[in-house]
């Protein structure tokens, strides 16, 4: 199910439009597409020592989040249960239904220097934060002249 994380956010919509225009003119887009607008929304960044991934996934049970790394491909999967009343419940009316519910899966490829043995993940206030260390051998170092 497609569901925007932030509906009616004008700036995000303008940003999306701009990126889609860019992709339309890009003759060789990524094989995994842009992946924008999915759940959870992702912010990815890096420092010289680590790769930092922030997934905006509020309302999950941390024990049910499944994170896997296979050949440089990081997969996060899980399920968010709906808080809406079931169809049979005739006493309740749903007026607005914008939040994502159901199972999700998002993948991203890590840079080559990411160390698959040094991954840490924590979940706080609805943000899943994954830190992947970069291999020490890939760190910039000074070569001394003998």
């Amino acid at each position: 199910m497609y569901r925007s994380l932030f509906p009616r956010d004008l700036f995000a919509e303008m940003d999306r439009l701009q990126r889609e225009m860019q992709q339309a003119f890009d003759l060789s887009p990524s094989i995994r597409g842009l992946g924008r607008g999915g759940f959870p929304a992702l912010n990815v960044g890096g420092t010289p020592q680590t790769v930092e991934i922030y997934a905006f996934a509020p309302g999950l049970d941390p024990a049910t989040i499944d994170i896997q790394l296979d050949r440089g491909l990081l997969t996060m999967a899980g399920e968010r249960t709906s808080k809406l009343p079931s169809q049979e419940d005739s006493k309740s009316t749903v007026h607005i239904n914008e939040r994502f519910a159901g199972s999700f899966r998002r993948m991203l490829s890590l840079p080559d220097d990411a160390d698959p043995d040094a991954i840490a993940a924590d979940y706080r206030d609805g943000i899943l934060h994954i830190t992947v260390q970069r291999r020490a051998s890939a760190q910039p170092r000074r070569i001394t002249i003998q």
Partner: protein
Amino acid sequence: MNDVDTVRSTSPSTVAQKDKAGYGEAALTPPVDVVEDGTGITLYADLPGVSKDKLHLQVESDTLTIDAESNLSVPEGLQSSHTEVGLARFHRVFTLSKELDTEKVSAELAQGVLTLRIPKVAQAQPRRIDVKVS
């Protein structure tokens, strides 16, 4: 964004108003679910990264304002390579209706999800009307 929703709107109708403050005050619109039952209205809002002290809820006459700030701490020297959530503020305004009891609003925040319960005033709760036969 100064869009005003009524809690009852079935579609997210936009009352587009000009953003007075500009980009500096720009905020994300958190997605919500609103469910009504016999005794009140329950609102669920996704506010990832918001802790209790950064959440401001305000009920003024018949307007409910949700204002929150995400406290995402990023390591020093972080070079962002892909950004889907580019703002750290959340803002949304709802217009309440008069049968809702704004004095008894209760709120709970867990794992970035706000649950807001607005009960109906006692006399507005459903009751069965007996038809008398004369």
